[in-house]
Structure formats: structure tokens, C-alpha cells
């Protein structure tokens, strides 16, 4: 679009201001991870690296990170399967209620987390509790998978809309079995959509706290829960800053990976439209 030079400058200024707005608090987190004061007095009186060494030795944080990764991977796996199935059903079939499916899939993420959390919690207790299955990591996975389905669904659906069925029909005409068609034709077509949707599902699960609070069983501490428990204790709060600083740095890896795989065009929940 041909924009006047002043319009370009104005947009550039807004972008720069926006980035400052986004990054100043993160910078503060980084600075505070070296702040000698236990409750982040501002400005810092002295700088120290002892929080970093304490964090390095903090087994609780490492354990929580591991739990979060496990929960994220399991929830993502379920979301991949369920999301892909719904996307195929919606794109390839006509059926009663098809138009409400997108609403149904979006609902778990659109309703406030506290509602999803207490609904799953009370249902789990009254149904699974009677079966003798207490809450644990599994219930966290179930909760996360429920609101992660939408990321995979939207990605795969967008891809299927664009690709159509010609290739699959050609494959079938050439005598391929249904499985072969899926393995050699359909799957490669949707692979990058699956990766993008999966990464976003993982990211959503990774920083989720409210639903997790209500679905975690005894002894299950995900990283956000660990942060929640430790942020409110002055001896531990600086270590939380270290963990957050590390996460910010590490997060570049999956984000960069998503970009490489999914192409430049990413919605929040729809990682790609053009691969």
C-alpha cells in the first residue's frame, strides 16, 4: 500500500513504542534476577549472582519444569489427534450441527479459565472420584487438552480448505489404500499445520495456571504453580525471576522453530496460512 512518508513514520513510531511497552517489564525481570534485595526494591541497591546459583541448585524448579513439559507434550498429543479428527469431519462431510462445531471447539478457551477449572474439578471429583481415580498429572492433561484442541483444529481446517481433495482422489484412483493415501498424501499436506498447531498448544499449556490450579492432584507441581507458590515468599521470589529470565531466553527456540516450520504468517492459534 502506498503510504505517505509521514504515515510510515507514524506507524514506525507506534511499533517502536509498542515494543518498548512490551519489553520494559521483561527487562525489569532480568535486572531483578540480579537484584540483591529479596523483594525487588527499586532501584536495586546491590547486584548479585547468588539467585542464579540458587536457582541452578533448585531441584523444585527443575522438577516443575519437567512436569510442565510432560503435561504440555501429553496435552498436545491429545489435541493433535482430536483437533485433526474434527477438522477432517468438518471439512470433508456435511452433517447436522456442523456450524456449531467451531463454537464448541472455541468454547473451552473462550470461557474464563476459572469456570473451566471449577467445572472440570467438580466433575472429576464426582465422576472419576467414584471410580477411584484421583486427580493427578492426568487430570491436568485432560484440562489442558480440552482448551488446546482449538489450536490444532483451526490450523488443520485452514490447510484442508486450501488444499482440497484432488490429490487424495488421484491417489485413490491410482489404487492406493486409504491408509496409503493418508500416509503419503494427506499427512505431508497437513504436516506443517500440525506442527504449528501443536507448538501453540504446547505454549498455551505451558503457561496455564488457573485451570491447572483446579485440576492438579497432590504432588503435581507444574512450572506456573511452582512460580505461584514461590513468588509470594521473599526468600524465593528472586529465584522465580531467574527462572522467568531463563524462560524468556529459551522461548526463542520454540518460537523460532515455529517460524521456520510454519512460515511467516501466524495467527495466535493458527500458526500458518501459507507454508
Amino acid at each position, binding site marked *: 500500500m502506498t503510504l505517505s512518508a509521514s504515515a510510515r513514520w507514524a506507524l514506525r513510531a507506534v511499533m517502536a513504542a509498542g515494543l518498548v511497552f512490551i519489553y520494559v517489564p521483561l527487562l525489569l525481570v532480568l535486572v531483578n534476577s540480579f537484584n540483591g*534485595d*529479596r*523483594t*525487588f*526494591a*527499586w532501584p536495586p*541497591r546491590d547486584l548479585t549472582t547468588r539467585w542464579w546459583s*540458587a536457582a541452578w*541448585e*533448585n*531441584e*523444585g*524448579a527443575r*522438577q516443575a519444569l519437567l512436569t510442565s513439559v510432560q503435561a504440555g507434550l501429553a496435552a498436545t498429543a491429545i489435541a493433535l489427534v482430536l483437533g485433526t479428527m474434527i477438522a477432517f469431519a468438518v471439512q470433508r462431510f456435511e452433517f447436522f450441527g456442523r456450524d456449531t462445531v467451531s463454537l464448541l471447539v472455541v468454547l473451552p478457551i473462550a470461557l474464563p479459565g476459572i469456570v473451566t477449572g471449577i467445572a472440570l474439578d467438580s466433575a472429576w*471429583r464426582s465422576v472419576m*472420584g*467414584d471410580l*477411584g481415580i*484421583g*486427580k493427578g498429572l492426568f487430570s491436568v492433561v485432560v484440562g489442558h487438552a480440552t482448551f488446546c484442541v482449538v489450536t490444532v483444529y483451526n490450523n488443520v481446517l485452514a490447510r484442508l480448505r486450501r488444499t482440497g481433495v484432488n490429490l487424495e482422489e488421484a491417489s485413490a484412483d491410482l489404487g492406493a489404500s486409504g491408509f496409503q493415501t493418508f500416509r503419503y498424501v494427506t499427512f505431508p499436506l497437513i504436516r506443517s499445520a500440525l506442527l504449528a498447531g501443536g507448538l501453540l498448544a504446547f505454549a498455551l499449556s505451558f503457561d496455564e495456571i488457573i485451570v491447572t490450579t483446579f485440576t492438579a*492432584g*497432590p*504432588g503435581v507441581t507444574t512450572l506456573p504453580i511452582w512460580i505461584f*507458590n*514461590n*513468588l*509470594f*515468599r*521473599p*526468600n*524465593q*521470589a528472586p*529465584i522465580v525471576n531467574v527462572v522467568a529470565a531463563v524462560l524468556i531466553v529459551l522461548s526463542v527456540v520454540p518460537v523460532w522453530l515455529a517460524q521456520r516450520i510454519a512460515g511467516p504468517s501466524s495467527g495466535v492459534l493458527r500458526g500458518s496460512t501459507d507454508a
Partner: protein
Amino acid sequence: MRSGRIVMAALAAGVLTLAGCGDGGSSGSTGSGPGGLSVPKIDKLASLGAGEGTVNVVSWAGYVEDGSTDKAVDWVTGFESETGCQVNNKIAGTSDEMVALMKTGEYDVVSASGDASLRLIYGGDVAPVNTDLISNYKDVFEGLKNQRWNSVDGASYGVPHGRGANLLMYRTDQVQPAPTSWSAVFDPASPFKGKITAYDSPIYIADAALYLMKTKPDLKITNPYALDDTQFQAAVDLLKQQNELIGEYWSDYTKEVQAFKAGNSVLGTTWQVIVNLTKADGAPVEAILPSEGATGWSDTWMISAKAAHPNCAYLWMNHIISPKANAGVAEWFGEAPSNKLSCAQTADKNHCATFHAEDEEYFEQVWYWTTPLAQCLDGRTDVTCKDYSAWTQAWTTIKG
């Protein structure tokens, strides 16, 4: 699970019939609770068996440390290797959350404060404790044993863990002269409007009631946890008026330490541990036990009525009040230990003095958190008191 519930229901029905026959708490067959209320009958463990390999714990942050936050702070690993009981800990943020967690039946033991313990006892969620099976129980301060919030009818429902008072903290550079009374936080003309803080929980209503108990004798409040309609309304009105003065309510202590250091708050309720931390970070604060006395807390380790691992739970309760572990928790968390022998085990030799652990006179001025019940805790039978759910809903209206 199902059959357990039926038994409970039958018991409760039986108890109700008994209570109906009684004349208000004088005879042995009625409940001895306030207003003739009865406790569901649950047997205590008769003898210790072998550990079950696991114990699920609900606790306050800092009560169960296994070295994962700080290598030097660990009173769990030794217990695990000694008894073979693997400890799974769930941290609760508030007393109310503890009650909710214990109601799930997934946990064996809980470190309940007095504003949770009675709810757990009368709700049939916890079982009486056979103190004979807990060898360290004999060394617990007498002032903590068999109290209103941890026992019924002489039957102990837990082992006391530690205690503390809700003090009045102020910035010495801004609040002059130093306050001596809770009136400092209730005075509508306070010069510190917008910089006063209060504890964010329905139980804070008791602080207002305590103040009214001393300043408005007409209301005839004798126990800040037993409030009839008029008394309750007076306390709620006082707090609504105080809401105008409040800058923020606090519930976690990083938040309060930070607010006092920055000067967002200059006056308000606090715990001793917060005072120590704020001072250590160089802020000019002091705390006092005001002339009216104060509310406070005393925590009790209780065992679930549905405990799946009762033997490990008993081993845990004995371990956590042993002098070494008890001293460790008291120092890490910042409270007065419950075991007499703990004071010799603290790393900081002044710990017990700072926290008034052996000062019974100090703790006599403290009204420990107790769950408000419909049956008045002060023994009145002619009126109904406001129960905790009424307190909770009132707290929402106070905050507006």
C-alpha cells in the same frame, strides 16, 4: 468410597437425634460443641502399623521442605528414608483452600489453622488423634494443647505445630507518634488514608470485632468469633468504613513487604515474619501488639477421616513436631515453635525470644483464629451467630 458415605450419613442422622433429645450441652449424651452441636463419631487409630509407603500432605508454604527450594532446608528427605513414607505435598494459599482440599479425601494430613480446624472437625473430615502414638506430643507447650480450636470434649484432633499473632506494623519514619491501639487503622480521619493495609480474608472481620469488644462494651462481644446479628453488623459497618482508608488488602507476604518498603502501605496488620523480612531489607518499620490484644493463629496437624495412609500420617505428625524439624519449620516460616525442646535447636539462638515462643503472657492476649459457627462459640444459646459462609459473603460486600 460410596459405602463410607452411607455410614457417615447414618452416623450423622444418629447424632442429630441425640442432639435433639439433649437440653443444651449438659448431659454426656449430647454434643459438647457450642450450642449442643455434635461431632461425627470417628474412631482414632488404635495402634501404629507399618507405613504405607506414601503420605499426601496439605500444608502452608514453607511447612514441608525437602531441600528442593534450598538444599540446607530439608526436614522431609530424612523422614522419607527413615520411614519409607514418600511425602507428596500440596501447598494451600488460604485456610479456606485447605478445607476444600481436605474435603476431596485425597489427602492424609493437613496443617490447619484455627479458622479451618473446627470446620474440618464438625464436617467429619478429620479424625481424632491418638496422642499416645505420638511420642513428641508430651513436649508441646501446655498452652497449645486441648484448646478450643484443636479439640472437642477433651479429645484431641491434632498436634499443635506453631503459633503467631497478627501484629500492627507501621513505618517509623511516617507514622508518628507510634500507634498503641488498633484505632490507628479504624480512625475515619486517619492522615494515612489510602496507605493502610489489612489482611484479605473474611477472618479479618474478627479484628474489627476484637476492637469493638474493647471500645464498644454496649455490644457485649465476649469472643470475636461469636457474633450475633447486631454485633456482626457493627463489625461489618466498621470495616466498610475502614475500606475508605485501605490502599490494598494483602494476602501474600512478598506483596506486603514490598508495599511497606515502597511506602504504598505505612500502617496495617502483619505477621512477625513479615516484620523481620522488611527490617532485614532496610525499611524503617516496627510492629506492636496493640493494647486491645490481637487475633492470631495456631496451626494444628490433623489427620483425614478418610486417610488412605494413616500409619505414615501418624509418623509424619510425630516427625514434624520433633524438636529438630519443629525448630527448622519455625525458623524457615517465621513463627513460634510448639515444642518446648525446639528452642534449643534453632540456628538463631534468639528465635524463640523474637517470636515470644515461651511467653505465655504474650499469647494470653491473642485470640487465635477459630471458625465462626452458627452455634455461638461463647456459649450463648439464645441467639444464632453468623457462620463462616456469612462471613465470606460479608467480606465481598465490605470490599465492594
